């Protein structure tokens, strides 16, 4: 995913390891950017599905044109 502050891409799993020392790690819904330490919530699964749905629709529209 991409950090919303410094805009750098990082791996979610790697980011999880980055904050493994935190006492709130278990059940934590936040992701910390390994580059700038900014925290953001885990991307919503259903919101991602909505975006993908519209992207697919847009893609089909382009093909049909």
């Amino acid at each position: 995913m991409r950090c919303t502050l410094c805009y750098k891409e990082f791996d979610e799993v790697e980011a999880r390891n980055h904050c493994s020392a935190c006492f709130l790690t278990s059940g934590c819904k936040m992701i910390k950017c390994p580059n700038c330490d900014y925290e953001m919530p885990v991307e919503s699964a259903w919101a991602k599905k909505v975006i993908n749905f519209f992207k697919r629709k847009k893609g089909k529209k382009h093909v049909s044109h």
Partner: protein
Amino acid sequence: MPVLEAPQAQAQKKIALVGNPNVGKSLIFNHLSGSYATVSNYPGTTVGVMRGKLKVQGVQAEVVDTPGMYSLISITEEERVARSILMEGNLDLVIHVADAKNLDRMLPFTLQLIEAGFPLILCLNMADELEQRNLSINKEELQKELGIPVVLTAAVTGKGISQLKAEIQKFNQEENQREKDFFPDAFKSVLKEIQSNLKGTYPIQTHAIASLLLQEDIEAVRWVKENDSASFHAIQETINHAKTLYSHSLQYELALSRQKEVERIVNNVFVGESSKRTGFAEKLSQWMMQPLTGLPILAVVLYFGLYKFVGVFGGGTLVDLIEGGLFEGYINPFLVNLFEKIIPWQTFRDLFTGEYGVLTLGVRYAVALVLPIVGAFFLFFAMIEDSGYLPRLAMLVDRVFKKIGLNGRAVIPIVLGFGCDTMATIVTRILETKRERVIATLLLALAIPCSAQLGVILAVLAPYPSALLVWVGVIALEFLFIGYLAAKAMPGEKPSFYMELPPMRFPKISNVFLKTMSRMEWYFKEVFPLFIFASVLIWVGQVTGIFQFLVHSLEPVVQALGLPKEASVAFLFGFFRRDYGAAGLFDLNDAGIMTGVNLLVACVTLTLFLPCVAQFLVMKKEHGMKITLGISAFVLVLALGTGYVLNKLLVGIGWSF
């Protein structure tokens, strides 16, 4: 002599591909190495590194695809691995793969690599996308500027790969590795002085080591301590002296000067319309960071984003529609009727549909009051984030924050505090010193309202713009004044700050949607069970009489602030959660029992009021019980004291809103 030739006569050479993530490095690697590659973890890490045999006629070499890196100053484990390969790999050739479309963001790293003295080829990939945008790069001019070979490729289609292979074949290491730097004159004397003290053997050019030392790179410091321990003290003195010459950190000053050099080169070599667009974005970026222009921009952003959108629209229009229209008009009356029929016992019925019932209060607060307000706030926040404004805000406030013992980096926990102070208290860990962490924790507990609290305050004060201005003034003043006193009480070194700036951009709808929904989902999942739990707790308190006792105990306190005694409920809620207390304040305003002065005093006091239970526990975990109790006691006295003085002052001068 071209060193990459004559395979029979020489041992196998080493070539590394470096560059930012997502620039097509792996595709270039595949083109160069064919299909045979091995992946193994870099020793002592979990980072995988791809290695293959170079498929270029006449050259026998191993080619390594390094993990993505943005600069020689490494932060992540991947970057550390990539840097180790660069520094310790005895490389015969480094190919910097960069995104041709974003030359201005790629070249700072190229300049670093050249300064470090790596034998370098610049491979500008994604040239096809550049063409699609009717843009082009004057390759010959860029080669002249940088003094290294430049190749344009489109790894997806394979275009330019043969030229890249040809450049590898004819690469002349000695010619390429001459000492070159892009530092401004102001830094040259400092770098020369440091360089003159570097006598040991280093993996890169000593002027690049000197530059890394100026940027306080930990590994460079370690190398110098090992190789030039005798002159380390003198070097440190030179660096300390250089620090006094600049208001910002040396890392920032160096990056700024490098960026200026990059802009000059890009303007020289880029052909097409985009330079005009880049020009405006760059100007806007500079305006945002200069106090004279940055502060008015900030005021406009806060006025339209926070006041108009979150306060008036979110806290006013949306809440009126959902809470006033839907819940009070239909849902709550329906639930009250329903529960009257199915639960005959008043006490148990109160648990669900009483004054503080789980459904009539807990669900209503969470769904109809807090969610629309934080939703509006998160939408505004996502647009700010996606535009690239936040890092520029950090640079803008860096100077002010230094006066209160912090630096621009503290913008991260402070801004996150507007979302949730508890989470932000944990994020203070990113600050370098304990002093900074304690000051930031204190300021978060004192003067940073969480999103729901902020939204409710903006909504209830929106009809009284002058009251809102007083609220902003009091909170900002306390934030700065208490920060200043705390910095004086806890003297320490001025922390330096530098942040690489991402490009300015128009927020993308899909990004904004994803960020807003992710935050709303996270907030709702956290807040909903707690609001239900609070309602149950209040019900238990009512049944046992503890709730009434606590409310009565707080009455003299709120009355001393000039508030009606009913306001003690909102204060009691505020102990539990800031947003819950804010929602209580909203109900009081709805009931029409508060005057304009009352509302202002309550808003100021509740903003400065004690941290909620969760924030208190996190503070204890982070800083220990002594500091937490100290901060809490200080915040409580200051909040009530400010409320008391403000009320007396407003009543005394007969101010009404």
